[in-house]
């Protein structure tokens, strides 16, 4: 088997797998499965990147997403009802319009991809793309890279501040109920857990 044929076969497998896995993310009832289908999709894209010689990026994508998807899975088990999908159910709204939007964006982008004339200038250099990336990150684009780093730092601090129990203005739960009716009264208790709330009986229709 020639090398380019092997690459083509691998591409079809990985890219097709990535798309199928992406679709299955929204077709399963089990939250853990949803998270790991998404991971499978990232693994497929990571593999395609490796095929495209962006080895470092592909591997880092896998490294990052394995951790993130696991956190996501645990998150959903923590917060969501029916984590294992024992109860078949759908939790979609505006299903029709969402489908249309998805199809339209796919069709539009695919059309651009097929019709538009991109310059045909494949990568020719034999240099290690990882080394090129390293030189770029710490050379010309250092400022951009550093900005990304600072953004991440700010995000870390910000998300801890948002998520932690004691925020900047005291206990997060304080004053979270509806405002009191009389100015001197203490805040009313928290609203009922929304599970029985009749607001969203329409949430099932697809």
């Amino acid at each position, binding site marked *: 088997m020639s090398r380019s044929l092997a690459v083509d076969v691998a591409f079809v497998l990985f890219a097709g797998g990535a798309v199928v896995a992406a679709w299955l993310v929204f077709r399963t009832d*089990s939250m853990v499965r949803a998270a*790991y289908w998404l*991971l499978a999709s990232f693994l497929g894209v*990571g593999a395609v990147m490796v095929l495209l010689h962006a*080895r*470092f990026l592909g*591997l880092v994508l896998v490294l990052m997403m*394995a*951790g993130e998807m696991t*956190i996501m899975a645990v998150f959903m088990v923590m917060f969501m009802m029916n984590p294992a999908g024992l109860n078949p159910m759908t939790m979609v709204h505006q299903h029709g319009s969402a489908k249309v939007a998805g199809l339209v964006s796919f069709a539009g982008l695919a059309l651009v991809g097929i019709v538009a004339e991109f310059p045909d200038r494949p990568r020719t250099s034999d240099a290690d793309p990882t080394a090129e990336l390293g030189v770029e990150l710490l050379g010309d684009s250092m400022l951009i890279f550093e900005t990304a780093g600072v953004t991440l730092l700010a995000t870390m601090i910000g998300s801890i501040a948002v998520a932690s129990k004691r925020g900047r203005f005291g206990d997060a739960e304080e004053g979270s109920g509806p405002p009191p009716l009389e100015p001197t009264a203490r805040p009313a208790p928290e609203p009922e857990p929304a599970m029985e709330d009749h607001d969203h009986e329409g949430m099932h229709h697809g």
Partner: protein
Amino acid sequence: MNPVAAVGVVGGVLGAGAYALAVLDGAAARGVAGMPRRWADVVVEPARDAALLALTRRSTTERPDAQAWALAPGLLAAMAGAAVASVPLAEGFAVADVADGIVLFGAAMAVVMVGVYLHGWSANSPFPLVGGYRFIALALSYEMPLALVLIAAALPAESLSVGAIVASQAGSWNVVRQPLGLPLYLVAGMGLAFWGPLDGADGADLAGGTAAEVSGPARLAWELARRFVLVAVALMGAAVFLGGWHGPVLPGAVWMALKTLALLALTVAIGHRVARVRLERFVVVAWAVLIPLALVDVFVSGALAL
């Protein structure tokens, strides 16, 4: 390399390593327990246990996530195999000395975390599930030190390839140049293979944790897979910190095997001497002590490499 030969080499290394690990563990357990031992028995024992497991029927639980359950050991074994493939087993001989070997290793170890969690989750049983949660809490806290010490080891080599890192240790090994590296690496590595004091995921206090519900061939596969991970960790540790194939007199491949076995023996000894860590306390230690130490390691190694 021919794909069949590549699979054979990787499988052979993992299999031999896992068997050696089982023998070492059996010998150490008998030594610590003060049980009389015949070497012949100690050497054959793992094969006997494996044979028994192979003959035992696999059991199931009520409504498990069967595919994920079956996938989990395969995922661990595949990731261990990917890691092994990138390590040069002798000078100039690696199954696939990819240019970003240690990034590949980091990615493989991150996917190991997924495998262990899936194994706990899919059994649909409380103790395995708690084991899976425990593993995530632990694994997330040593992914970071693991990545940092590997980066530090790559600095003097000015390359992410494991072969280049080994080549850079011709003068002095990284274990001497970066004394913080190997201990931190071993803590993280033992944790990823949930071995010894870090076996919270499969601990005795959870009746076996994620493995509490598996029997027969599935149990065999799981025990093998986790040993594969530990072997991959030891092999990578031997290459990255102990100078890989470098060594006098003996051929490089022998040095590599000896160093790997030495690391495996060290983990076995730690496993029989150190009590299981408390989850919460260890997570605090990992974030507040291990990560800063790993950062120091990176800074110092970087300064030295300049």
